[in-house]
């Protein structure tokens, strides 16, 4: 074998091939730039392999070089196409076959033993590869990625054509080298090109699809947002949602059903457009459009019953492209307004909770819903479910904040009318605390200096809670301040307050009130009571606690109630304690009440303390007793200590 001269090489098909290769390389670079994802690189390697083969052949024009490289190229082709489509066995088989053929070809070249037939038996192998690949592609069929399959089929067809030329004309044929090979250069690039184009087309379509979805979701948000801003009504919000879903799916009508807040049923909450019922109507319901519509509007189903109950129970979407003849759709009569055309129903899911079902319909005669619409509805349903659950969360938060606002107003009023700072006297000192319980705000206390040597102490508890109770408290306080500055005694003051409050307005207004009028010069006190807790007095001389109880009914029960007063005398060091029921009824985790006895002990242990310190001591003892238990009622304490 001799190495060909320059003339021979120039006269060979190599220049043609090289020119084509050059052109191809330019295209190669262009494609490479567009292919950011490396989709086509496999085909480029094939292209390079061919280029190497032809350059080698130009210098070593032996047919076996061609045959052997083709065996590799076809194995690589099968690998490129079949491996991505799950044809591993095929790849292994073809590789083994081709490798065996390579070994046979090498052996035959070294020591020719194969018969010189018109058609080389080894040349059959690439043709066989192409045929097997074609069968494989046909079998894999439509279930696989369309683009890949098309590119593969194209490659297999071109490969088969080339293999046929090589087989029938032989590897020495001029036609093969001058026409078939340069043409065959096109195929990897062509396929790479094709794949890239389709891929980009897919990207564009996906982009358009997502743009559409985002658009729909945007419209959905706008609609439900409007309902939240304007009326904050769930039915307005659901109506808006249904309208958007109907228009986005190009349906004739649609409905949203929600799972009931208390029972396990799912019921219609919004129906828009024309929505013939796909479930069985009662036999005795007149088949009139307005009657049927009214029935549908209020229909509800147990979970699992009808296609809506089923979707709500299982959480599975339902697609009925053609209602006619589909057993899932119940027919209610031949009338036009009762006939369903095409239906899709998708559960409204928030994580693994079904909150309802959304359904849309097209009437008979219109094009049925497509799979694409079904997917679109699923996206809309996902987002819709989120909107609905957000709405309910907002609603709950709003109700809670309204409740809190009402009790905050009451607490604020209460905070405004109790004294901020206690007055100080040479002969008596005061201490107090009031601790409102959340949402109650009924305790009241006051200290009114009526004359230089007189101070009026008041502790009361308005029954009820919230703003109503606060209003009663304000009324009590107003009358008290008015009569405190007259020369009336404490019993008369109570009857005036009682008259001022009882039966005046159409609401319950009860309050207990204890009044103590202290003579700062003498230590003499006058005590009157309207249903309030007994007075506790620490007697310094006896070192004991005296309980003073004046039984009577509270303010607000009867207009004509008469109250009595009792006169007592305090000596230096004596302490007077007024308090509300929240103190003595304070309960610990074991369910025991603090009680008057503990309160008395607490006062007794405060004998050496100032009035202010005594109030703090009682508060600490109370907190200690209650521990972690919740405070369920207001607690108020007012202490006076005489130092004559």
């Amino acid at each position: 074998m001799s190495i060909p001269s320059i003339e021979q090489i120039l006269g060979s098909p190599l220049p043609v091939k090289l020119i084509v290769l050059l052109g191809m390389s330019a295209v190669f670079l262009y494609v490479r730039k567009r292919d950011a994802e490396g989709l086509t690189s496999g085909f480029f390697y094939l292209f390079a392999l061919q280029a190497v083969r032809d350059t080698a052949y130009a210098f070593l024009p032996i047919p076996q070089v061609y045959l052997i490289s083709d065996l590799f190229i076809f194995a690589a082709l099968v690998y490129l196409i079949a491996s991505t489509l799950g044809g591993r066995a095929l790849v292994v088989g073809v590789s083994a076959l081709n490798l065996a053929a390579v070994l046979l070809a090498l052996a035959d070249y070294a020591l020719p033993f194969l018969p010189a037939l018109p058609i080389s038996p080894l040349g059959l192998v690439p043709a066989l590869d192409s045929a097997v690949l074609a069968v494989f592609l046909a079998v894999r069929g439509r279930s696989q990625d369309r683009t890949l399959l098309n590119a593969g089929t194209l490659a297999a067809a071109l490969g088969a054509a080339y293999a046929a030329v090589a087989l029938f004309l032989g590897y020495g044929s001029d036609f093969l080298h001058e026409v078939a090979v340069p043409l065959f250069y096109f195929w990897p690039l062509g396929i790479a090109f094709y794949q890239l184009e389709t891929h980009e087309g897919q990207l564009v379509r996906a982009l358009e699809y997502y743009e559409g979805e985002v658009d729909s979701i945007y419209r959905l948000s706008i609609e439900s947002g409007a309902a939240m801003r304007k009326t904050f009504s769930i039915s307005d919000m659901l109506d808006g949602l249904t309208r958007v879903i109907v228009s986005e799916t190009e349906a004739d009508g649609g409905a949203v059903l929600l799972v009931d807040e208390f029972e396990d049923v799912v019921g219609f909450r919004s129906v828009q457009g024309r929505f013939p019922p796909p479930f069985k109507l009662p036999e005795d319901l007149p088949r009139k459009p307005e009657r049927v519509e009214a029935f549908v509007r209020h229909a509800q189903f147990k979970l699992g019953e009808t296609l809506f109950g089923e979707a709500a129970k299982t959480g599975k979407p339902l697609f009925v492209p053609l209602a006619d003849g589909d057993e899932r759709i119940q027919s209610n009569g031949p009338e036009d307004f009762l006939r369903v055309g095409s239906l899709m129903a998708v559960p409204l899911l928030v994580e693994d909770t079904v909150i309802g079902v959304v359904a849309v319909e097209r009437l008979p005669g219109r094009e049925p819903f497509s799979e694409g619409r079904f997917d679109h509805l699923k996206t809309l349903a996902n987002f819709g479910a989120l909107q609905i659950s957000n709405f309910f969360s907002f609603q709950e938060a709003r109700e809670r904040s309204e409740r809190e606002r009402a009790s905050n107003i009451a607490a604020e009023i209460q905070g405004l009318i109790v004294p901020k700072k206690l007055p100080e006297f040479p002969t008596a000192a005061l201490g107090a605390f009031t601790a409102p319980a959340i949402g109650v705000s009924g305790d009241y206390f006051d200290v009114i200096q009526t004359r230089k040597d007189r101070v009026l102490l008041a502790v009361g508890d308005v029954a009820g809670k919230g703003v109503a109770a606060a209003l009663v408290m304000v009324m009590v306080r107003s009358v008290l301040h008015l009569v405190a500055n007259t020369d009336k005694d404490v019993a008369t003051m109570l009857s005036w307050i009682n008259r001022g409050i009882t039966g005046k307005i159409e609401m319950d207004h009860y309050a207990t009130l204890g009044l103590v009028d202290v003579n700062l010069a003498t230590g003499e006190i006058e005590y009157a009571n309207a249903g309030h807790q007994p007075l506790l007095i620490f007697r310094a001389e006896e070192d004991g606690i005296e309980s003073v109880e004046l039984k009577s009914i509270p303010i607000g029960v009867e207009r004509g109630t008469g109250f009595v007063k009792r006169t007592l005398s305090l000596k230096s060091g004596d302490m007077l304690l007024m308090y509300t029921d929240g103190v003595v009824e304070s309960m610990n985790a074991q369910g025991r009440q603090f009680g008057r006895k503990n309160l008395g002990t607490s006062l007794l242990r405060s004998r050496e303390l100032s009035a202010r310190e005594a109030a703090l001591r009682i508060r600490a003892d109370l907190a200690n007793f209650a521990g972690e238990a919740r405070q369920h009622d207001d607690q108020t304490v007012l202490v006076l200590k005489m130092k004559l």
Partner: protein
Amino acid sequence: MDSADTTYLSGIHEIRVDENSPLFEKTNMLFKEFPSDYRQIRYFTLLIVQSAPLEIKEINLLEQQISEIIKNAVKHGNKCVPEKKVRVWYEFDASHAHLIVQDEGEGFKDLETWNEFNRRRLEKLAAQDFEGLADYVSFRTESSDDNDGGNALFAALEYWNGGFVYNTRRNAVAMLKKYPQRHLGVTLEDRTG
């Protein structure tokens, strides 16, 4: 009638006597006691109800029901003798109201008679015999007066849906109201199934 109320046909609708009922368990219940003063019943009721949370929507209905029970204790139990006390244990949250009301009287002697009366009343209702029902509008005993409607317990039995039980002496009654709880949607039991 489209929306006939059929609740009276379901469940056991009679007053039970069962001192061992869990409804008599007083642990951690709040407690108040009142003198048997008929004039103050509304006030006492308000003192109890004020500890009910704001989440309970039909608070007026609850107040009315509690008021009836306290009225029974003050009037029929303690015969309005001010020295006799009415003791109330109570506990509320958003999902329930639980009360025990005890008086110092002789106990509800006519309990069986009442149950029998109520059973007949419900039969008339179920049969839609509205003429016959006229005889069963008001339950009256020798001690009934013009202020007794004779129908408070019918409503009570409907209202206290978690039970309405007397102790053996029949001077204490324990009751439970369960409020339906709002929930959003139903949880899927098995997503793959």
